[in-house]
């Protein structure tokens, strides 16, 4: 079963991610039973059909890199899992998507980074609001994945306000200043 790092722990994961292959339409693509992440377009077109599954916590939505939470702002409260795809780890749009979901739209469910997810970005992803990190199944050995968890905590007291640190450093701690 694929692995997922959830809140800093490695767990087995049985969510299936549905993508639209060429020629498949959002309106009638077949969805598997069980826990399923569907593309945003599928959710938008089949919301009435899928809402009961979402409310039971077995269906979530994933955003492509160019998609954002404003597209389904009213639905966010019904979703317990949202994923954001990183088509390439150098495509940083997902960091803004996560930041907006957590700090503007108040999304509190699982926020999962999928796609080209690498340990060297774990810290920034976590601070942007991802509490679930899913590298490609073939990227890390079990041992490497265990070692990778440490990267989440690369920086202990960052300067910025973010999803994990609601206040910037200058409001979070008392800094001594020049006289000290």
């Amino acid at each position, binding site marked *: 079963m694929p692995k997922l790092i959830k809140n800093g722990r490695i767990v087995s994961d049985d969510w299936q991610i549905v993508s639209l292959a060429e020629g498949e339409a959002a309106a009638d693509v077949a969805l598997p039973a069980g826990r399923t992440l569907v593309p945003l377009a599928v959710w938008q077109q089949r919301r009435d059909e899928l809402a009961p599954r979402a409310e039971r916590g077995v269906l979530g939505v994933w955003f492509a890199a160019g998609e*954002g939470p404003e597209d389904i702002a009213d639905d966010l409260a019904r979703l317990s899992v949202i994923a954001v795809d990183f088509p390439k*780890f*150098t*495509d*940083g*749009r997902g*960091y*803004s*998507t996560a*930041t907006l979901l957590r700090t*503007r739209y108040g999304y509190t469910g699982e926020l999962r980074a999928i796609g080209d997810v*690498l340990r*060297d*970005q774990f*810290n*920034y*992803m976590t*601070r*942007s609001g991802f509490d679930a990190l899913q590298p490609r199944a073939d990227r890390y050995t079990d041992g*490497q994945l265990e070692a990778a968890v440490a*990267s989440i905590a*690369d*920086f*202990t*007291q*960052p*300067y*910025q*306000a*973010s999803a994990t640190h*609601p*206040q*910037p*450093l*200058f*409001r979070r*701690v008392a*800094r*001594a*200043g*020049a*006289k*000290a």
Partner: protein
Amino acid sequence: MYRYDEYDQQLLDERVAQFRDQMRRHLAGELTDDEFRPVRLQNGLYIQRHAPMFRISVPYGHLASRQLRKLAHLARTYDRGYAHFTTRTNVQFNWSPLEVIPDMLAELATVQMHANQTSGNDIRNITADAFAGVAADEIVDPRPWAEILRQWATYNPEFAYLPRKFKIALNAATEDRVVLRVYDIGLDLKRDAEGNIGFRVLVGGGLGRTPILGEEIESFVPWQHLITYCEAILRVYNRYGRRDNVWKARIKILVKALGVEEFRWQVREEWAHAKDGPNTLTEAEVERVSAYFVDPQYEDLPADDKPHHHHIVENLAFAAWVKRNVRAHKKPGYASVTLSLKKTGIAPGDISAEQMDLVADWADRFSFGEARMTHEQNVVLADVKLSDLYPLWQLARDAGLATPNIGLLTDIICCPGGDFCSLANAKSIPIAQAIQERFDDLDYLYDIGEIEINISGCMNSCGHHHVGHIGVLGVDKNGEEWYQVSIGGEQGNSTALGKVIGPSFARAQMADVVEKLIETYIELRHPDERFVDTVHRLGIDPFKQRVYGSEQLTQRKVANA
């Protein structure tokens, strides 16, 4: 000068540990070249022609003497005994082996230095006026604001994988000394009618392949909102900037595509959510950071120093240096000195380990232990007593750092070019040297007056050739090095982009071309008119005719036509 507290130091130490592990995994084959690339770039490490190029950040150009000594030590221990100072107030080493970079970073961290985000598609080193705190025309000291921005930008989780690099500069004086309009964000510090500090915000400037001057999107953003407003710009850019084409990925292309009005509207929309949020600056934080940038313990001195005047009258060489390299200071009895890194025969911006040690000594002895780098690739000692100018000049002269050419033709701004850089199409240093050798006569240089020559080895424009009075760009034509010449570019308050005069030239022609441009200017100039003003008054035609009309270049013109 800012000094790290435990939080700054802990973050930096954690960064060093992070990169050491990344390097270890890379060398062990666990981190592929592609995966390692952005990570090493964000730590200043390029793979270059001969060896990696390692670019160290000097935030807003300020260096303490112990930091200079550390750079000298690194140059001797890990490199070839010298360093290169860049147009973005960074320091580059060209010969350090890959494996030692984590050790160099660890050494730098002991003096509160780093190579954070000196490359990569992130927020780069923030530049400010080299004369901050001492210039008579200063409105507000830009350094606390530059430091506040540095902290916000450093390891910022949301903006580390932008479509492209992102550069911010701050100016806070009547005269623009940072070339605000060529930055992704140019922040112009101001006071409103009530004396409140705020920022005029320019956006979308940049050089490179498509040079564009930045445009104003806000005339006054109150200081409390500095971070939230910049964040709004960055978020709009991160989400909507182009990622499909590296040549169209800078924010300037997004601003052009949307139009300034639409871009402003989108930023305001975004800002409306973040404004007054947690990132709003507090008075306490501004006071805390500002306390590091108070005036040093100046002595009360008379505005004049008799022995100083005596030396000027007695010693022509000293007088020439004072005229070109010494600048008025806000405090009576003090002056700011520019040490020239533009001696003929030395690559512009290069400085040896011995020279760095000497500058550190002079900083301690004459200028409160601090030095500054300028974007023209020279070094400033900002707070020197008039009575110390003569002994400082003697020392600097002996060390080859007193060439009296600041602002003159031989004060050439130049990237490392094809001698070192793997991006370059052509060499740039030999062009600078040929020009410096041709214009060796100091009297002639003084007669020519103020002029800026900028040389870039490729379209990345590290030599800022677009804004040079004479700009030289290295281009590749079927594997050969050629040089395109533009004139009429300018930095400062009337920043302008130069116009290309015609087909490009071979390296051997370049000194002739510059000489012809200068001769044309000498013939046509009005009294007290600078080269660039003559170009703006007459247009490029007379210059073009002179350069291409001459016999030896005609053939080339036809060949390239």
